[in-house]
């Protein structure tokens, strides 16, 4: 058994209303998933709200998880990210913050190397590294830290229109590179 089939099996049980399985899923995944929410919200209270919303959705939608579309860990993280993004938008993330807690460290190539060093993500890492640095930074700041176009523009000290175009171009290149 590996971790992936373990999570899929738990999700199948959650879909049948098995509360113990949901608790098990929480015990297994909450540290990783809270980290995902907190990277976006940078506020533990808000991240806790996001994780709570996400687990309600997980309990309700576990039956919709389709292993053919990707690993359960990714499905869980996507639900958490969107719950966190919803809260970030509701809080008004367009207010530009100069948050010192927003480190540049996850954007550094060595961080990419460490986090994405596993074989199955090597291609994504290679494709990200092939992007221009600011394209890559923009994509990572948006995905990992939930920054809006305007916040990415401020962070990278670039005009808003340029950032929008670069992120779009970066995503297009990623898709071609990963195809």
């Amino acid at each position, binding site marked *: 058994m590996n*971790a992936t089939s373990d999570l899929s099996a738990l999700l199948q049980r959650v879909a049948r209303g098995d509360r113990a399985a949901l608790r098990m899923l929480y015990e297994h995944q909450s*540290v990783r998933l809270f980290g995902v929410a907190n990277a976006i919200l940078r506020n533990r209270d808000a991240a806790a709200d996001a994780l709570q919303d996400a687990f309600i959705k997980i309990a309700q939608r576990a039956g919709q998880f389709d292993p053919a*579309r990707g690993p359960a860990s990714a499905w869980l993280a996507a639900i958490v990210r*969107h719950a966190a993004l919803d809260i970030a938008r509701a809080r008004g993330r367009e207010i530009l913050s100069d948050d010192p807690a927003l480190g540049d460290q996850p954007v550094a190539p060595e*961080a990419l190397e460490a986090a994405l060093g596993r074989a199955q993500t090597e291609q994504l890492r290679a494709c990200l590294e092939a992007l221009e640095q600011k394209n890559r930074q923009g994509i990572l700041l948006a*995905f990992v830290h939930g920054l809006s176009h305007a916040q990415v523009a401020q962070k990278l000290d670039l005009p808003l229109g340029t950032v929008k175009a670069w992120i779009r171009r970066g995503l297009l290149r990623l898709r071609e590179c990963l195809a």
Partner: protein
Amino acid sequence: MIPTDPQGRDEIAAEFVLGTLEAHDAVRVATAILTDADLARRVAGWEARLAPLADLATPEAPPPELWRRIEARLDPAPAPARARRWANPWKFGSFAGAALAAGLATFMLLRPAPAPQFMTVLLTDQAAPAWLVQADGAEIRLASLNTSPPPPDRVLELWALPQGAPAPTSLGLIPADGRITVRPTSIRPSPGMLIEITLEPPGGSPIGRPTGPIQFIGRLQPAVGS
């Protein structure tokens, strides 16, 4: 509006996944994918492409009370039986307290164990204490606090899952008296290790991993004073 050209549809799907859409566009995409199979496929494709990036976030433990908040949201109205039980807290409290004390006393009398390094209490799905788990660097000891026996054609099997391990390790079947001491060879008790008890067919899980529902679960924590 959701674009109609393939390029535009793929771009809005990508930015939905990336998180850069404004609130109204994000809601539009989230609603559209319920009925628009092509858009749903594009969103799923981008989720799959970008998913590994979520691992760049630093893992962090959530607040300890969060699971209880989630359960409270899932059970907005207390079940009548539970409401009745709590309506007479004296009766329930004294029963649970006596059972807890009796279980602890039995355990301590029979086994003057060395001071544990790690402990946890496994809870029932009603959050009532059911099992006491104590461990040191080599040994894991389990004692029943107040547990009803498994159904006649089922046994209780004890499992441990070290943090980061992909699968739990069986620690054996729990005998009828509810006490078991194990010295696992392949794993060492450590803080954060999950301890769980599942319901299995006679003889235990035939495949070396849990097959039945999890009855009780808890996480080893450093014992106070050790």
